[in-house]
């Protein structure tokens, strides 16, 4: 099975190995931080010409989940495009692919810090979504209940008999769930980074993505902890 089933805020959810989250009762698929058009934005801003295939690759991954789950509703949890201009300058082929993928789903774009405001594609645009008992927004808020968000691109690092494995992960605490980034060209922020400190409670765990996603406990790190290993 390529998902890990767990309960969050009294809701049964499934975390998929590719970084998607499925809410079976509502037939809803949630993905976060697609960062479509990132290579185009980097070229525009810095002149660096990275392999321009990340949009295609991200859409291929997303399409696989849509095929498998046939969800009624799809929620993109913000930073779906790397910036507003990128949403207008996708290669034509990718535009067509995305438009076709959206057909037959109730498609919701949550605004992110990279892509506020209207977008070039259809669907519903929201600042946040209340779908009781859950709340969906891009950036986690400090006081909240049953909130699902993205933005931070959590990743975790494990030492497995001499092998060092670092992978994107879902961070699940009692009051919130932070999604991993789904986009191909996305890095991660290690769970021991101070940014996660306010969120982590005694019952927190991470669901490590990969072929066989599984949960590992997350301990509170005392201050002084710093993320290492960005490459």
């Amino acid at each position, binding site marked *: 099975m390529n998902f890990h089933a767990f309960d969050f805020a009294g809701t049964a959810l499934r975390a998929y190995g590719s970084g998607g989250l499925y809410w079976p009762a509502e037939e809803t698929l949630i993905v976060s931080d697609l960062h479509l058009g990132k290579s185009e934005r980097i070229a525009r801003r810095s002149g660096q010409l990275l392999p321009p295939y990340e949009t295609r690759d991200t859409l291929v991954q997303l399409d696989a989940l849509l095929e498998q789950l046939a969800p009624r509703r799809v929620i993109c949890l913000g930073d779906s495009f790397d910036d507003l201009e990128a949403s207008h300058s996708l290669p034509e082929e990718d535009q067509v692919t995305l438009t076709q993928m959206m057909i037959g789903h109730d498609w919701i774009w949550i605004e992110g810090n990279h892509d506020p405001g209207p977008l070039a594609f259809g669907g519903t645009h929201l600042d946040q979504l209340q779908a009781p008992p859950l709340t969906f927004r891009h950036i986690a808020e400090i006081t909240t209940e049953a909130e699902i968000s993205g933005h931070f691109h959590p990743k975790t690092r494990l030492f497995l008999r001499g092998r060092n494995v670092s992978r994107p992960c879902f961070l699940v605490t009692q009051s919130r769930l932070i999604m991993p980034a789904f986009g191909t060209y996305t890095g991660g922020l290690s769970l021991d980074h101070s940014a996660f400190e306010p969120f982590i409670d005694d019952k927190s765990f991470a669901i490590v993505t990969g072929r066989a996603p599984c949960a590992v*406990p997350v301990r509170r790190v005392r201050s002084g902890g710093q993320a290492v290993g960005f490459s």
Partner: protein
Amino acid sequence: MTGLPSKIADWFAGKGWAIHPHQQTMLNLADAPSALLIAPTGGGKTMAGFLPTLSDLSENPGDGLHTLYVSPLKALAADIKRNLRKPADEIGLDIRIEDRTGDTSYTQKRRQRADPPHILLTTPESLALLLAYEDAPRMFAGVKRIVIDEIHALAESKRGDQLMLALSRLQSLAPDLRRVGLSATIEDPQAIADFMACHPAQPQIVTADPGPDPDIQMLRTEEPPPWAGGGGKYAIPAVLDQVRRHNTTLIFHNTRAQAELFFHHLWLANEDQLPIGIHHGALAKEQRLKVEQAMVDGSLKAIVCTGSLDLGIDWGDVDLVIQIGAPKNVKRLVQRIGRANHRYNAPSKALLVPANRFEIVECKAALDAVKAYDLDGEPKGPGPRDVLCQHILNCAAAGPFDAATLYAEVTTAGPYRELSPKGFEECLTYCATGGYALRAYDRYQRLVEKSGKWQLRDPRAAAQIRMNLGTIIDTETLKVRLKARRGPGSGGAPLGEIEEGFAATLTQGDTFLIGGQIVKYEGLNEMTVQVTRSQADKPRIATFLGTKFATSTQLSNRIIEIFQQDSWPELPNHTAEWLMLQRERSRLPEPGRLLIESFPRDGRANTVIYGFAGRNAMQTLGLLVTQRMEEQGLAPLGFVATDYATLIWGLDPLKDPEPIFDLENLRQGLEHWLAGNAVMKRTFRASAIVAGLIDRMTRGARKSGRQATFSSDILYDTLRKYDPDHLMLAITREEAMKGLIDFGRVEEMIIRTQGRIDLIELDRVTPLAAPLFLEAGRVPIKGLAEERLLAEEADHLFADAALPDAVTQPKRWAVPF
């Protein structure tokens, strides 16, 4: 014969010196377009290189840059500045001699560009940077000579390729430029001549009198060396004894980790408190300078060191070189020995200390090779194209260029003399558009062609190009500092650097060795590892990674030759007996044949392949052969590789080796295996940085730890999936094949043995195979292993979390492939 100007002749006479024959020859060749001098250390090599310059400047004083000097080390440039200043002053030359390296101040650098000195001492990177400015043509228009020091060392790396491309540019700016190369003793002077020439011209090769043969022997110890391992700890009493009996001893090690361990044990045994220091590339600059100064002052009896001391910095009173562990490469050994008795015409003295039983044979082979003047060297392939891409971008940063002119120019550089127009075109296209099958960047091309000339679309990109310049790719390291006693911050004394991957495995209280002391990990602050001194007498984690050299082909062949002797009176008894026992029980490896042993042990089937292809190639062979064995259902469980053999253990024995060692089959296996390989990803990252695909990661960018940055592995995977023919993948492949994968030597081994395989089935482990079971660096065969381990680990972690006192996981640090 060219006479010396009277001022200089008087100076020589005043010192009571006569000009060396090779110095005279270099003076005679002052007008030759290029000349290569091969001379031993201490042979007045630098003076030979500069005599034509001093001579010309004394007769034709004038303004502007006259001579460039390029050396691989900043320290060497500073050294030469001192060593040149003195004679220049004594001769009475009114000239400016300045150095320019990464350490030179901004103001000084600006002034040098506006008003260059007569002699500028610099490094390949700083020269390339100067050429990437718009004012390069003005600055270099009048330069007459360039002296390249330690050219044999530069020629071994991409830095040399970069320098030769820079020279091709320089030659266009200053057509009368004369080139002088200074080299230590090398096996193939013609290869260096081809490398440094302005093609198709050929340099004159000048060989100085190599001086007397070195006095070099194996160190005899009371205790025989162990069966396996590389530390040489057993020899410490004998080494201390030698240190006592000499003025200054250099103790070379093949890796930093070994140097650290040896130094630690040396001090534990150093009852006389002999002043002994340690010097290697991972130590903090302050630490290294301290040791270097103590060395110059003559206050050290010995220095434990690595290759960071290899290059010709002129130091004190070294009268003995000790090499711990087999030298792996005869050329490097000879150059190291040259450090002892740094006086011309005095024999150098050196001792080899084999670290284990097998290395006794290896050291013997090295000794024979030195006596026979038989130096080794792998032929150098064509210049790598990632360096060419960087050069094209550098040229664009300096100003618009014409493609055909640039192609003609770069093919005058030795390493690129056979570059095809298509090969160049691909690099240019990559620099301009990214070179992707999907044309996504029409609006954001990096270079655009305007009225026949290529130029930067956005001139502001020049700064970014200059910032990324250079071919040295640092492994990502973190600085280690002693924790300040009071207050926060990272104010403690710097100790050195450790690899980031190693740092990530540390938790508070872990101890490790650095700079010869045991320290305790306290935490990470602002990307600095904070430690305190530890009273522990044994570090829990002893090592961090360093380079491991592979034994050269030539040395390997000599070892096999030694095996063919009827008896070994020149080897210590224990070693001769060991080899004899191997001959009785099984067989010794023979030239032109491939010996494979198969025997059971501990309920597993073991296969030993005596390939003698060097560590990297034997590692690659292990991966390829186990993959085939897996396909044949033999259930291999793992393998370990050394310079001479690969040991594979599994459930079933290997019965039919021929198809497995078929070259075509191995090649196919390689293609398949290379795909997701960590070596490829590491090579890709290095080439991608050199070629300007991704920016160098500055410390600042890492510190900010933004999640916006992502791993270059992702770029590699994406390219492989969607653009498998892309130039960067081709370059990655070319580079990996020469370097860590070393498939060339696997091929060479297969061709050498041509199917003459001797598979010997035995009932128990053989004498030659026994040490392999003690080797570190075992590689497990993967598959879905990682997922299974992950699941196991998750269970453990939850079980631990439920306990009040969580058991810490044992820390391990392993090669990531």
